[in-house]
């Protein structure tokens, strides 16, 4: 495991150290949830399920939803 200490020379590129899981976890939890919600709004809101009533969100991202491969209607 000693090779994780990066020793860059002309031939060996940087081999990065491992970021400890404990440092990543809070970011992962926070950003992960946020990103999934964002994804839900692009991919599924007002199609299969609705948080807001109406079809405004659906209509607005309509083309993106089709082209990104999500089922639309």
């Amino acid at each position, binding site marked *: 495991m000693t090779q994780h200490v990066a020793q860059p020379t002309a031939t060996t590129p940087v081999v990065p150290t491992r970021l400890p899981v404990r440092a990543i976890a809070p970011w992962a939890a926070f950003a992960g949830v946020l990103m999934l919600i964002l994804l839900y709004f692009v991919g599924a809101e007002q199609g299969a399920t609705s948080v807001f009533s109406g079809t405004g969100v659906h209509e607005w991202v*309509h083309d993106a939803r089709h*082209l*990104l491969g999500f089922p639309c209607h």
Partner: protein
Amino acid sequence: MLAGLGAGVFALLVAFFLGEPGVEDAIAFEEAGAHEHGAELVSRTAQSTGGLATGVLAFGVAFGGIAALVCCFALGRAGRFAPRTTALLVSGAALLCVYLVPFLKYPANPPAVGDPGTIGKRTALYFLMMLLGVVLAVAAVLCGRRLVPRLGTWYATVAAGAFFVLAVGLACAFLPAVDEVPEGFPADLLWRFRVAALAIQLTFWTAFGLLFGEAAQRLLSPGARGAPGDPSPAVR
């Protein structure tokens, strides 16, 4: 996330120039079928520009953010790869898991294809397929790592790959099929739409891998200011 946004810009260009003609043609077909839509809530122009941009860029930020987190985790754990190599590998894997796997079974459909009555089922199946892609890939990687001491890196990788392909194949075989292309819908248009959809994803993930990799490489290169910031390289 910023790399995702940047990649989203590239994907948007592809979407607009390659994808939109297909959408327009499909809508022309839909309307020729005298399918009454009622008053338009959002005009077609708005949908094909601002709406498309919102959707694609939000998608870029979302997947960019998640993929960036995965990259942080994979860095140094995925083997002796430089940051930019890791980034490109992660984005390739992401393309495979969250797009190609669902695409195999439930490919992108243009407007006019698909029965509104089954949208709930189709959405659930699509997200299930995405989830399966990710779960199976993680399982394959874990199994592969377990096998390395017994089979060596090469055969362990081959075995893990075979497991992944087999598992995805089984999922495709047993999940219900969706076949809702209306009668008379031009096959060529469907093909063009799907190829365009594929091109968008390919562009997005390639651009993300390269942009994020470049940024990570610069940040983590020795001599760069504020590099790793982790003084405990020997831990694990």
